[in-house]
């Protein structure tokens, strides 16, 4: 069934494993950004 013909009720929920990977990826990227900002950029001296 093509996506154009599907109704919202026809959608299956995403597999749990995929959701876990999604959340881990997002968390990982956020933590990496926070590390670069707070751990490397700010300790090198504030700039204005």
């Amino acid at each position, binding site marked *: 069934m093509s996506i154009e013909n599907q109704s919202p009720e026809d959608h*299956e929920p995403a597999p749990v494993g995929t959701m876990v990977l999604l959340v881990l990826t997002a968390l990982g990227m956020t933590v990496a950004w926070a590390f670069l900002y707070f751990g490397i950029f700010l300790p*090198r*001296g*504030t*700039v204005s």
Partner: protein
Amino acid sequence: MNPNSWISKTRSELGLILQDMQIEHLEKNWIYLATAMIGFMVVILSIGAVFLHLNPPSHWETIDSASLHLGGEFAEDKIGVQPELPDGIIQVKLVAARYGFFPREIVVPADKKIQFRMASLDVLHGAHIPMTNMSTMIVPGHISEVTTVFPKPGEYPLLCNEYCGMGHDHMWSKVTVLSQNDWDARKNEGKQP
């Protein structure tokens, strides 16, 4: 609101489009997560900008580059590290020219606000001190002003990171950052500006 106005028509068309769109669960969840990530970063940066004054340097001041050496703030006998200002800021005046930053060596203390005021004698230059956040362009006809703090004592190169000619890759000077004790000792020896 007039239902026949273009605003009303646009809003109703958008509503119908969104209603018809059937976004996959995974795609929807990823949109939410990505938006949350961006929102988090924007909030952190905004808090830093508004409350801690952490913002990219923004300064607009003009000067006649062709006559820098003749007098004024960047005359040859006035450049370099200046005496500490009443508010505790130490000003450093530099002239960037092909191919060096003048004076060639400067000594500043760690953990104190250092305000770099730089002007170009000729063409576009960049000033960058690696392993710190001091990095800016020096545009002819303008004064670049960056205020920063060096937390770690040591010797750093001051590099030009904007192509300025054949000798660009040799254009660098030295910045020595002293600990507070060494800075005070230097002051007592009478070497301070």
